[in-house]
């Protein structure tokens, strides 16, 4: 199996002529104002149910995490550290425009408030896609990963397969397409996640969250272009001495083959609730299959041996 050896999204090339340019998101948290327009835009467009009204005390985040009913989630992290580190070199002579000290550089009162709009990563090698037993999850012609709601039977396998905890089963009462009563389930029961607005893409429209984003923290576009943009952005921020600036999921060599929706973070991923070194679980599947065949063989042999040899009593 070659699922992780290619740098191209699995399944994408099956489209032949119908294949489109791979698109995605670049979420630049250095300009995110935490307004949550993305969360609402997503819900309005995708007609997602309300996700409960729980005051968490976790800064301004009361959505808490991605899930079946939240496909964009804005994280808020309050930190006692400056946004920009003190620059080593003083401002160039004659540059009267720069402040005398870097923002928050005095250390004592330094404070920063990180905000990050999280979303499905649309991995190049997507575990959810691989493990889905029905083909409900599929790679679209745009290289994105989508759950087909007319197919999903709610087996839930993709839920623990995702290394980012993106997918979840909707436990709310079904609103449309109710299952026959004889089978008893009252809940929606299907798994939902970001579709990168598959329907909008088909109509040539930008995904709802990216369109709404007031500061263009969420940028939508061809992935290659976004990666270039991100590299330039990282270089700029690093030159300006921004604390902890790093790209997350930009590198096609990472454990999931690079994200279709990647990020510029201002601290390590785990601070935002993201795994620091995610790996697509199916990378180990070939090994697991052969290991299993060995176990099955051993078991066959074992049962046979224990039955064939030895006394009947």
């Amino acid at each position: 199996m070659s699922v992780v050896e290619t740098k191209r999204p699995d399944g994408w090339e099956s489209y032949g002529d119908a294949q489109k340019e791979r698109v995605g998101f670049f979420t630049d948290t250095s300009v995110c104002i935490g307004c949550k327009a993305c969360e609402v835009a997503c819900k309005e467009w995708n007609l997602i149910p309300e996700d409960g009204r729980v005051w968490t005390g976790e800064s301004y985040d009361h959505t808490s995490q991605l899930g079946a009913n939240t496909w964009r989630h804005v994280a808020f992290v309050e930190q006692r550290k400056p946004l920009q580190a003190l620059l080593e070199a003083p401002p160039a002579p004659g540059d009267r425009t720069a402040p005398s000290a870097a923002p928050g550089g005095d250390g004592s009162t330094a404070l920063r408030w990180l905000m990050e709009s999280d979303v499905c990563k649309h991995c190049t090698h997507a575990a959810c896609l691989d493990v889905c037993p029905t083909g409900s999850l599929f790679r679209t012609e745009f290289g994105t990963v989508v759950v087909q709601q007319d197919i999903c039977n709610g087996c839930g396998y993709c839920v623990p397969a995702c290394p980012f905890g993106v997918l979840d089963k909707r436990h709310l009462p079904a609103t449309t397409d109710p299952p026959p009563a004889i089978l008893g389930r009252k809940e929606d029961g299907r798994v939902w996640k970001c579709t990168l607005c598959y329907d909008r893409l088909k109509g040539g429209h930008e995904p709802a969250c990216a369109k709404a984003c007031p500061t263009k923290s969420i940028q939508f576009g061809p992935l290659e272009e976004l990666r270039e943009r991100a590299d330039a952005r990282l270089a700029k921020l690093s030159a300006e001495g921004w604390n902890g600036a790093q790209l997350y999921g930009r590198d096609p060599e990472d454990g999931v083959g690079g994200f279709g929706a990647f990020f510029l973070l201002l601290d390590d991923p785990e601070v935002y609730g993201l795994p620091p070194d995610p790996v697509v679980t199916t990378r180990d599947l070939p090994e697991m299959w052969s290991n299993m065949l060995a176990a099955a063989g051993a078991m066959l042999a074992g049962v046979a041996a224990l039955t064939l040899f030895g006394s009947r009593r």
Partner: protein
Amino acid sequence: MREELHPLSDVNGKPPGTTSWDGSITEAGTEMRSYYGRPVIKEPVWTWEIPAYFFTGGLAGASAVLSTAAKLTGNEPLSKRALYIGAVADLVSPALLISDLGRPERFHHMLRVVKITSPMNVGSWVLLVSGGASNTAAVLELLGRLKPVKLLAGAVSSLAGPLLATYTGVLIADTAVPVWHEGRRELPWIFGASAMASAGAAASVFLRPEDAGPARRLAVAGVLAEGALMQLMEVRLGKIGEVYRQGAAGKLSWAAKGLATGGAALLARRGKRSRAALVLGGAMVCAGEMCLRWAVFKAGLQSARDPKYVVEPQRERADRRGTKATTKPDA
């Protein structure tokens, strides 16, 4: 639905390992960074049917082999009983799986595709083949007709059986759940051993001592193998293996060990003579195997729930070997 994972009254009391107001985790001197202690990955949404299926699937798979092997040695009582046990388990298994689905009426979508990347899809096909074969064999056995077909069905089911019994180990290992994924080498073996133990023990319950030798040996060997493999896995899991000693998984592990070992001892020492020992020992081993499956299941849920089992190993790995997940300016 989102929930208040850490009831704030607890947060205020600051029990170990919960969030403080600034999101830092305070845990007995260590500081693990996470997002307010919230899980990184999602806990599996599977309900009780799934661990139950692990048991019935294993039972069915091993019983099919046992039945055929017994037939080869001419142990007809064992062969028949194993056949029927396997067939029943093969009938219960899909019912359990369907019951767990969010959309049970769409169970047949499982056969929409053939996906080698999806252990669950592969398993569905295996279960179809194995269950179909074992039930065909059982029905023909009951009716006493079409013997060649019956034999063929029996052979098919005994070849598919080991796959059915072990693929569930891959099924859960092929997730991001730390304690499952990191146990990927042992899990199919443990499930195979557990299946052997279950099949042997279940057959023992229905056998007279004079026919129960192979079944008892199977049960005892399965229990011994599984115990050793579990030990090996826990050691190899390192820190994350601690979930097998904590909470529900811990209790179930102990119960599994106690019941399976006790049952196996009973079968080994008294099973030769006592029908009662066979029944009791067999039941104990089965119960033990059931507990084992539940322990593995619960351990998975527990390790998914606590971000440290996700973050710490990955952070350690990233710090040790570097990671391509993040691109830093100087890189």
